[in-house]
């Protein structure tokens, strides 16, 4: 079916195992889709507006913000349109143009763009390079000390990618936070790939800010949504209000995600709160898949070992050999996977690619690994 505008319906999540790392943990639960269906109209959340999104009781946004602050081990929270807007708000609140910030070598481009828009320089840490690309507290210490010596001032902020989107490495956030705090530098943790998937406590990690992506990792749809959770020490600097419109938070220009996405986030929250308690199962699936592929030969993991996250990056020389002679070249893999009911890797990629096992059942995780291996063996035996 195609809608009158020419856009086709999308049945990807019903027909296929979708392993696109961007999408696996943003897949919505049935209750969430029902909520979105009911609240889809523009500004529907503003039926009982009291002047500010964050103080709304119908739907219960005020209560949700209190609950989610506690869930993240922080003292306050605000809604944003995504993790990048949360990062922008922090940088905008606590830096001045001409300041500099430090970020890890695996930082997402949106971290760099958020800093650029705020006219602050970014100093990137080194990484361990191939094949682990690990970022350690020592990398942060080195970048902080070297850059401070050269610039004469400490950075205004450290932005730490909790789990990067290229290799699925989980950093030692507590260790990095200690290194930064020892030098008087506040820490913003980008959790686009962690909160909502796995347990994260800002208090335990010792960070000052947590940026979350609801549409990436909190099973939220119906639009974009994010959360900025913060410690009480920075509440007044980040959660400050307009002088002329005193109920409107400045950093969100009054109200941020004012559509069905915020209702979706509230509807998804009980489900998210429950699913993070099963994170060990997600890690076990990822480790099982990696082991099956590496045991089969022709596959090699990129990133740190043991695998501790559902985002899996692999070098796949076995597929690259097949692509050299296959009439579809590198596109054979995506085509063969789709024929087996699997989508989500970038078509044409055979040297290396990434995928996510988040949310798969035991049987689906095994089927995924077996299918990767079957495709390799199919051509090996010709």
């Amino acid at each position: 079916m195609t809608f009158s505008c020419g856009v086709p319906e999308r049945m990807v999540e019903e027909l296929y195992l979708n392993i696109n790392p961007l999408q696996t943990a943003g897949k919505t639960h049935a209750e969430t889709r029902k909520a979105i269906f009911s609240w889809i109209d523009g500004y529907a959340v503003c039926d009982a507006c009291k002047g500010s999104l964050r103080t709304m009781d119908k739907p219960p946004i005020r209560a949700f913000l209190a609950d989610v602050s506690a869930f993240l081990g922080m003292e306050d929270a605000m809604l944003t349109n995504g993790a990048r807007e949360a990062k922008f708000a922090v940088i905008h609140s606590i830096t001045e143009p001409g300041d500099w910030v430090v970020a890890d070598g695996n930082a997402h481009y949106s971290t760099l763009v958020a800093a650029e828009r705020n006219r602050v320089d970014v100093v990137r840490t080194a990484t361990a390079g191939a094949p682990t690309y690990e970022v350690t507290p020592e990398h942060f210490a080195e970048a902080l000390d070297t850059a401070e010596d050269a610039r004469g001032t400490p950075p205004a902020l450290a932005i730490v990618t909790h789990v990067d989107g290229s290799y699925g490495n989980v950093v030692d956030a507590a260790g990095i936070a200690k290194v930064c705090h020892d030098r008087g530098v506040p820490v913003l943790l980008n959790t686009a790939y962690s909160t909502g998937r796995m347990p994260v406590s800002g208090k335990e990690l010792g960070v000052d800010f947590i940026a979350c992506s609801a549409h990436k990792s909190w099973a939220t749809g119906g639009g974009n949504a994010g959360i900025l959770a913060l410690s009480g020490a920075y509440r007044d600097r980040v959660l400050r209000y307009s002088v002329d419109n005193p109920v409107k938070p400045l950093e969100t220009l009054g109200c941020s995600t004012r559509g069905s996405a915020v209702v979706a986030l509230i509807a998804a929250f009980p489900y998210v709160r429950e699913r993070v308690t099963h994170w060990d199962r997600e890690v076990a699936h990822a480790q099982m898949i990696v082991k099956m592929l590496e045991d089969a030969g022709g596959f090699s993991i990129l990133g740190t070992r043991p695998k501790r996250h559902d985002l899996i990056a692999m070098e796949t020389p076995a597929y690259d050999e097949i692509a050299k002679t296959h009439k579809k070249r590198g596109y054979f893999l995506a085509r063969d996977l789709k024929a087996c009911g699997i989508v989500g890797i970038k078509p044409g990629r055979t040297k290396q690619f990434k995928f996510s096992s988040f949310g798969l059942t035991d049987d689906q995780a095994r089927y995924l690994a077996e299918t990767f291996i079957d495709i390799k063996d199919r051509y090996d035996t010709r």
Partner: protein
Amino acid sequence: MSERSVSNTYAAMFALIDIQELWRRTRPTHTLSEGDKAELASLLATVRAALDAIEEEMR
């Protein structure tokens, strides 16, 4: 027609979303267990009952 029919429209839609969830849960083969089949039958009955109620009010 009344609010009841609007409410029944939502009841039918929500049951269909639960059926959609069944397809998502069993992708890509959609091999249904006996429990899945019983759930599907119950959801289809809910959809039918809601649509029947709308039709009844229309008469």
